[in-house]
């Protein structure tokens, strides 16, 4: 049985999306910027996609800018709004748990002379809003805080934060790549300036994303050239991708209800089953996306768990150091103060509306045995006479 539970990494393209995209490869392949009707007729499909995405976000169609991916969107949002300020404000704020597309961008900006504040989170992954409020000064140019975390699924109170930031006159950007399609988002009510979404996280293909840029927000493009996207992002449109993203957005709007009932019920079934049957299991994060479960298993290591799961056809991911090629475990779990004993053994299961109960039960049937097997191999699960084991110096931070 093949069970895909890594939907925060990427999702299956919905069959309806593939079908909607199919005419745009070899029939309607004209360039929407062309003067002839062969190209011109494509323009209306892009307009439709823009409307579909605007509907998902409670925005106006002319506030949607198509991009190539979530990372591009984050970069354009952050660098573009800062460039528009021409260095008049030198302070920037983000959190310690952002996706690298935001985090690394902010760290680079710090090297270029911006003063960076990275807000901490507590053990549950939550922000201290009073501290955030205090951190924003008249010199603060931009605040970028994700809507929901990709690793833990922890949701930040974006509506409250947006009001707080706008009251102080800074630009507010939110990376909503994981939240879009899973949580209701209404830009007509929440004063976010710029918001990022990505196609392949909501059953559209890879290689297409979108930015909501509130009317009146100044943004300097970083890909210059043609007049596409209102001059905010040059480059001939990825027409099939954009059409696909439009249909996926429409489907996501319709599915938010089921996302919060059916997917949440499956996730909760997985969660309670693993907590009940697996030794040393602890859930990371509170107030999470309905599809995400980040769970740690004490004294065993994440890559080993994933490869054992892989052997029974289950795809998941881990915040362990070994899986990423880096040596440090997940920066998100470390920021939450999750101890190393648990951080190395974390597994993220992320579901979609295409998962069924039998798949969850397949995981529940095998996971206790996998944990048992790895504990049998682990030296930390056994007391051995003559053992001198302590934490290696320098490693216990």
């Amino acid at each position, binding site marked *: 049985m093949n069970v895909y539970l890594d939907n925060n990494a990427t999702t299956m393209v919905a069959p309806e999306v593939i079908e909607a995209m199919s005419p745009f490869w070899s029939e309607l392949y004209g360039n929407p910027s062309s003067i002839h009707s062969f190209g011109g007729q494509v323009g209306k499909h892009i307009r439709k996609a823009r409307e579909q995405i605007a509907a998902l976000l409670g925005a106006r169609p002319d506030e949607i800018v198509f991009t190539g991916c979530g990372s591009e969107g984050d970069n354009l949002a952050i660098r573009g709004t800062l460039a528009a300020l021409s260095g008049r404000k030198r302070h920037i704020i983000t959190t310690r748990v952002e996706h690298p597309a935001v985090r690394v961008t902010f760290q680079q900006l710090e090297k270029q002379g911006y003063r960076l504040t990275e807000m901490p989170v507590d053990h549950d992954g939550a922000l201290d809003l009073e501290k955030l409020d205090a951190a924003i000064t008249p010199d603060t140019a931009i605040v970028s805080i994700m809507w929901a975390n990709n690793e833990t699924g922890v949701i930040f109170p974006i509506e409250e934060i947006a009001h707080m930031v706008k009251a102080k006159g800074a630009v507010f950007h939110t990376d909503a790549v994981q939240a879009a399609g899973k949580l209701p988002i209404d830009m007509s009510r929440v004063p976010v300036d710029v918001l990022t979404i990505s196609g392949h996280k909501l059953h559209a293909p890879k290689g297409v994303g979108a930015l909501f840029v509130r009317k009146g927000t100044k943004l300097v493009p970083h890909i210059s050239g043609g007049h596409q996207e209102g001059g905010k992002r040059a480059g001939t449109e990825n027409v099939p991708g954009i059409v696909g993203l439009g249909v996926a957005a429409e489907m996501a709007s319709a599915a938010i209800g089921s996302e919060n009932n059916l997917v949440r019920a499956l996730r909760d079934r997985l969660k309670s089953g693993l907590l009940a049957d697996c030794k040393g299991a602890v859930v990371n994060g509170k107030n999470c996306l309905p599809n995400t479960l980040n769970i740690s298993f004490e004294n065993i290591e*994440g890559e080993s768990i994933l490869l054992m799961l892989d052997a029974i056809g289950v795809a998941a991911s881990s915040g362990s150091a070994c*899986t990423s090629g880096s040596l440090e475990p997940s920066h998100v779990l470390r920021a939450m103060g999750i101890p190393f004993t648990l951080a190395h053994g974390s597994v993220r299961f992320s579901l979609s509306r295409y998962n069924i109960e039998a798949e969850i039960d397949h995981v529940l049937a095998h996971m206790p045995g996998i944990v048992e097997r790895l504990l049998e191999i682990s030296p*930390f699960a*056994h007391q051995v006479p003559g053992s001198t084991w302590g*934490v*290696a*110096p*320098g490693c216990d931070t």
Partner: protein
Amino acid sequence: MWDYTSKLMDHFKNPRNVGVIEKPDGIGEVGSLACGDALRLMFKLDDKGQIENVKFQTFGCASAIASSSALTEMLIGKTLAEAQKITNQDIADFLGGMPDQKMHCSVMGRDALSAAIENYEKGSPPDKKVDSDIVCQCFGVTQLEIERAVRENHLTTIEEVTNYTKAGGGCESCHDDISQIIARVRAEKKDTGDPADVPVRKKELTTVQKIRMIEETLDREIRPSLKKDGGDIELVDLDGDKVIVSMRGTCAQCRLVDFTLKDVVETKIKEFVADNLRVVEEGSEEEAR
């Protein structure tokens, strides 16, 4: 996803000799939970002094578990003197190789073996690491451990040291120290003339030898492709580390001449003759410098 060999995956899925020996002759423990992997190795000797039983327990990724399992298979029947000779590369080779970034797993196996033998010989647990010897605070890696990895595996870069020992993989503040250790160990090796570490082309060449090798390299690596486009290259002089050349035919007018010189000619000459050489065009500003 890691590119693990099928033998490595077999040792991960079906690890050999997992467990504990009640009264071991030697026990070695390296790594920690915090560091992300750890290995406990125990052995018992028979009356001929050969390892008759060996068991391990490992916390870590697939390559850590497989390295431990492989090591135990390699140890059975060996005397301690023979066991001492096992290097981390032997462990990696036994498994058909492992990804560069995972080599520290094989080093952990070798370290646990050393610790277990030391425990047997001294009858006491191996000396605890002393803070002052630690170079990498993030992963608690000592100077000795880095030196040994550099020496045994002919490491030349910080990245390699991180792959083999984890040192330098965290906050990176020890990178300067690691560079110094690499330089020191390599200098020692040059003194002792360790042949494995002195590739032939890096021996000090005489000027005549260099000129001959440059000509050969131009003939073999460069000229054929230039001639296809109606061009040619000629060696004018060798002045210290400066290889002065002249471009002929169509190459003389080519707008890509700088690229050809630096990215093609110089790369090949560095590869086949000597690292310190640079290529300049006759009559250019760079030649005058």
